[in-house]
Structures are given as structure tokens and as C-alpha cells.
């Protein structure tokens, strides 16, 4: 039992010495309650300290350990070895992102996209803090709650072919977040935010492959958010068409 092992094929890329990524195989002890991240840590601690990857909370909420496991975008902290044993496991960095090193991807484009949807409450009138919280009924909360659950793990970007084909596409997580704020009863930033959400790079870039929602570990369902965003953008477009400026 203790001697059982499993093979991890890990994509390596060290910018200081490699011209392109190559696979490296590691034999790792197999434990039923180990996740892929445990195996990677075992490699790093005992076999090869040069293997680089991100991780933090190891409980599926910080969103930093997303990788391609056997071709699927997964959080490695809740992907168990037992799902694959005794077959080898292939671990690669998330696709549709540049590789910084080994399993570490470059997050800059994602952060830029996040900013584009203005993920903050926009108010025309700011309520003084002394006047207490806004009221929001449970029903109003549930309108956007699901879309606020995104942990920015970016698995959806790796799953979305549109992100790969058109890097300028704002993408599932950021759009879902933009729509989360559009649906928030406390927000008044509709016009401002719609400029991005309803742009060509926004919801209209989506062809509804739907894979983003399949891989989402938090059931945010960004595909649903984006389709609802299309409906919202369409109603808005007709409203603007029918009503003269300034009277909306």
C-alpha cells in the first residue's frame, strides 16, 4: 500500500534555459487522500525544488492553483489522485495564457480585463455611512449572488476557445462580474459599465460554447451570466433606439 506510486507528467518551462516547454516525468507516492497539489508539493519538497507553481489556501477558495489536469482545467487542490490512479496524470499550466515559468501563467491580461468591467459599486448619490446600510431584499440579493461567487481561478479562460482565438475577449469571469454589478440593486453604473459589457469584446464576443460553466469549480455559471448580459444589452439597445437621449 505504502509503496504504490503514480506518474505525474509535468510541463516544464524555465525561461532562463528552455526555448520551449517540455514534459518531465515524476514518480510520486500514491495516497488515496492526496490531491494533485499534494503530489506537486511532494515533488517540490523532496525531489525537485526547481518546479514552480502557485498555490495558497489548499481548500478551493483562493483560486491560485488552477492547472490543466489531463487536458481539463481544474483546481489542483480538489482534484484527487484517486480519480486517475493507476494511470499517469498530465499536468500543464492553464491554456490560453502565456507561460511565465513551469506551471505559472501570466495573469496580466486577466487583471486588465477585470478592471475593464468596473467591478465596483457606482453611485450617483453616495449614502453617508452614518445612514447605515442600503436595504436589499433576499430576492434582490439572489439576483446577482451566484455571479458574485467567482474566485478568479481563471479555469473558465482556459476552457473558453474564444479567449484562445480572440485574446481581446473580456472573457467569462470578468463579464460575469460585470453582470453581477449590473444586477445589484445598489448599483447605478448601468450606462458606464454597459459600454464595456455590451461592447464587441464584451458579451458579444461569446459564442456560447458553455464550457466555462462546465469547468467552474464554484458553479458561478458565467455562460448564463453572459447570455443574460446579451438579453440585457439587447433590451438596452432597443430602448436607446426608441427613446431619445437623455430621457432614459
Amino acid at each position, binding site marked *: 500500500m505504502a509503496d504504490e506510486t503514480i506518474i505525474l507528467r509535468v510541463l516544464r518551462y524555465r525561461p532562463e534555459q528552455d526555448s520551449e516547454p517540455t514534459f518531465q516525468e515524476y514518480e510520486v507516492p500514491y495516497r488515496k487522500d492526496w490531491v494533485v497539489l499534494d503530489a506537486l508539493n511532494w515533488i517540490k519538497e523532496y525531489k525537485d525544488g526547481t518546479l514552480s507553481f502557485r498555490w495558497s489556501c489548499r481548500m478551493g477558495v483562493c483560486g491560485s492553483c488552477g492547472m490543466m489536469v489531463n487536458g481539463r482545467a481544474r483546481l489542483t487542490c480538489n482534484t484527487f489522485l484517486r480519480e486517475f490512479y493507476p494511470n499517469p496524470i498530465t499536468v500543464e499550466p492553464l491554456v490560453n495564457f502565456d507561460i511565465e515559468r513551469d506551471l505559472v501563467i501570466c495573469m496580466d491580461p486577466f487583471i486588465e480585463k477585470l478592471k475593464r468591467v468596473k467591478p465596483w459599486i457606482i453611485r450617483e448619490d453616495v449614502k453617508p455611512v452614518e445612514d447605515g446600510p442600503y436595504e436589499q431584499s433576499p430576492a434582490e440579493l439572489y439576483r446577482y449572488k451566484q455571479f458574485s461567487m467567482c474566485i478568479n481561478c481563471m479555469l473558465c479562460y482556459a476552457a473558453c476557445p474564444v479567449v484562445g482565438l480572440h485574446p481581446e475577449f473580456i472573457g467569462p469571469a470578468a463579464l460575469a462580474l460585470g453582470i453581477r454589478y449590473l444586477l445589484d440593486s445598489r448599483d447605478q453604473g448601468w450606462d458606464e459599465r454597459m459600454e464595456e459589457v*455590451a461592447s464587441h469584446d*464584451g458579451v458579444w464576443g461569446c459564442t456560447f460554447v458553455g464550457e466555462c460553466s462546465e469547468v467552474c469549480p464554484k458553479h458561478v455559471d458565467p455562460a448564463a451570466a453572459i447570455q443574460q448580459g446579451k438579453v440585457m444589452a*439587447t433590451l438596452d439597445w432597443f430602448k436607446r433606439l426608441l427613446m431619445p437621449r437623455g430621457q432614459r
Partner: protein
Amino acid sequence: MARSNEPAVWSLFAGGGALTALILPVHALALTILLPLGVIEADSEKLVAFLGHPLFRLYMFVLALLGLFHGAHRLRFTLIDLGLHALATPITWLCYGGATIGSLVALWVAVSF
């Protein structure tokens, strides 16, 4: 970034998608398979009257308009996604242009019956 005018075509796409999802299965089965095979027996004259009924002609036109725009919209994105990103603009013109021409032909057929 500016808002896109995509809603103009997307609403036709969505309308077409909903209409065709609902009606095309029975439409295709009955008219393109069962009718020619004679499973649904039809007298030619009566059939002409049925197909020429203003309501059917209206239906034909709506189906053509929405169906063509639905199809054109999907075709446009599929072609681009298959690697023709560079040709996005001509593809867009071609797809919606085709749908517009098709719809006009349908309108002409419907009106000139």
C-alpha cells in the same frame, strides 16, 4: 470601448433560434420526409391551397427571415472560429447579406403567390 450594434442581428438570431427549435422538427419531418413519402397523404390541389393560404405564406416568410438570420449569425461565428479571423468583416457582410437577400426572395415568393 463602445457599445456594439450586435443586438440588431442577435435579436433576429435569438428569435430565429427559438422559432426554429420549436417548429422545425415537426416542419422538417412532416413536409420534407413524410409528405414526399406519402405517409401524410395530400391532395395536390388542397395542398396548394394550404401552402398558398396567407397564413402559411406569412409563416413561410417569418421562418425564412428568422431562420436565415439565425443561421447566418451562427455560420459567421463558426467560420471565424475555424480560423478565418482575418476575414471577419467580409464573412459578416456575406452572411447577413445572404440572409437579407434570402429574406427578400421569400417575401417576393410570399407576396407574388
